[in-house]
């Protein structure tokens, strides 16, 4: 390791100690100790304990036979593939909208960030009430204009999952739009001016200037968003509660469901089953970020 190279030479010369560590390094270990303690007590121990709980092959057999688990796995995949790609495409599009130089767009961008700035629980509950079949404002309006009763939105598993995905997009779209905006603003304006002179169309500018300089950022964002969405508990749990009939669970809410049913080894086993999905993404992100 090249660490000794950087230790300041004067300190080494002045303090020839029997130990190999220089005084600054000793201080460093002392200052690193609080985090290491937190890490050991609240990451290493729980994870080790959880894996130990999930060691029994019988729990995996039980999971395999539980239709709710299969449904949750499919739901998670739909959530990731449809939800994330839709969200990132909209974010890519809107980032192009928000970099336009207009006074009102500047104001709109301040409002646009609101979903990200406010806590998710009240807004999710607000949407839940909106969709209430009897008193919710959506069905009230449907009744007012058509004279017919609106559908029972959250009672249909497909619609309910769609709503949960919508909720997730509503919450995190501003963040990704902001990130992609910084990517767009980093592109040199000269390129666009040159393209303008050459008479390039809007589509050509995107294809040959914007996309090539943003694709790395876009893919990194998509992967990061996938990891975070795997852990999105609130959008599903507070909107649908996993219902109707436990048909809209995703992997992150399923673990909690088993925990509440006091089936701890099943809860841990379901989390272990999510790892083949999580770990490759994590590995890839770590390689990207620790460069």
């Amino acid at each position, binding site marked *: 390791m090249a660490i000794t190279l950087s230790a300041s030479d004067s300190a080494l010369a002045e303090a020839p100690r029997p130990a190999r560590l220089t005084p600054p*390094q000793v201080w*460093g270990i002392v200052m690193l100790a609080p985090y290491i303690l937190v890490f050991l007590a609240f990451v290493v121990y729980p994870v080790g304990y959880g894996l130990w709980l999930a060691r029994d092959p019988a729990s995996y057999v039980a999971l395999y036979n539980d239709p709710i688990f299969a449904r949750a796995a499919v739901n998670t995949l739909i959530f990731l593939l449809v939800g994330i790609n839709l969200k990132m495409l909209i974010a890519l599009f809107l980032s192009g909208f928000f970099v336009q130089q207009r006074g009102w767009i500047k104001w709109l961008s301040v409002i*646009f960030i609101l979903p990200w700035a406010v806590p998710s629980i009240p807004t999710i509950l607000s949407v839940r009430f909106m969709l209430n079949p009897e008193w919710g404002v959506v069905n009230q309006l449907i009744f007012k204009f058509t004279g017919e009763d609106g559908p029972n939105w959250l009672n249909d598993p497909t619609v309910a999952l769609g709503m949960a995905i919508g909720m997730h997009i509503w919450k995190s779209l501003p963040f990704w739009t902001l990130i992609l905006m910084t990517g767009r603003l980093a592109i040199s304006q000269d390129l666009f001016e040159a393209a303008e002179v050459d008479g390039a169309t809007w589509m050509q500018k995107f294809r040959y200037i914007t996309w090539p300089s943003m694709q790395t950022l876009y893919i990194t964002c998509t992967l990061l968003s996938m990891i975070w969405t795997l852990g999105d508990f609130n959008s599903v749990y507070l909107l649908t509660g996993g219902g109707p009939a436990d048909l809209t669970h995703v992997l992150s809410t399923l673990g909690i469901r088993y925990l509440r049913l006091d089936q701890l080894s099943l809860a841990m086993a379901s989390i272990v089953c999510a790892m083949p999905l999580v770990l490759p993404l994590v590995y890839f992100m770590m390689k990207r970020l620790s460069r």
Partner: protein
Amino acid sequence: MKLPTLREVGTEARLLLIGIPVFIWTMIPIYHMFLFAISPKEDAFSGKLWPDHPTLHNFSIVFHQQHYFLRDFWIQFGNSVIIAVAVGALTLIIATCAAYAISRLRVPGSRIVMNLALFTYFIPAAFLAVPMYRTMGKYGLLNNDWSLILAMVTIASPYAIWVLKQASDKLPVELDEAAVMDGASPLQIFRLVYVPLMMPSLVAIGTYAVLLAWNEYLYAFLLLSNDKAITLPVALGNFLAADDSPWELLMTTGFIYALPPAAVYYAFKRYMVGGLTAGAVKS
């Protein structure tokens, strides 16, 4: 003369065609919450887009705890504040020390610690919740503020350390070398050189940790259950337990709960955008 203006109008119209739906989409859940908060009970369920008799009565009910669901409102509000502030302070102390040790003092093995921290950051918190719940039970911390504080510090510090390390790697090494020449000890450098220079990032990270703790639902709801120990979001979730829960009061409480983080966010936006988004996705 006429053609360019026509084109400008066209561009503006197309921009508005995007802008207006974006505005409506963003505002609907928030406006709906606000509408309930200012509506008396009979107006709230009428499906109107503006109440006939807007009122602040709901706020007074919440502040005076005049409903069964709200009897511990101020205690729960206080819990949220205490936990958020404690998480912010502890995360700042732990992460700043760790980032200083990793980036400036070059402790052997610090790269491994950094990678482990990053790894924890990427594991979704919802997956850590189940084992964390059991562990807190073993430590005897369930239903104690400390369980949530420590859990949130565990979740907040990896990202905090990473952002602070990125920021401190940009500080010139010559500063440290000059201070060492003047006979400063590592602790003096930390206090007199490092922390003052890192201030903008520290503000961003402190805000990040406070907001993370204030907004947390899952961990709060697992680790705290006693009515006098829970935080506001858990109390909001508990409204759903009853079929006849007073929506207008729930939305009022939710509105009050959502205001402080929004205010903090907009107040520190300058730091948040510079300090966090740049660090969030380095490409």
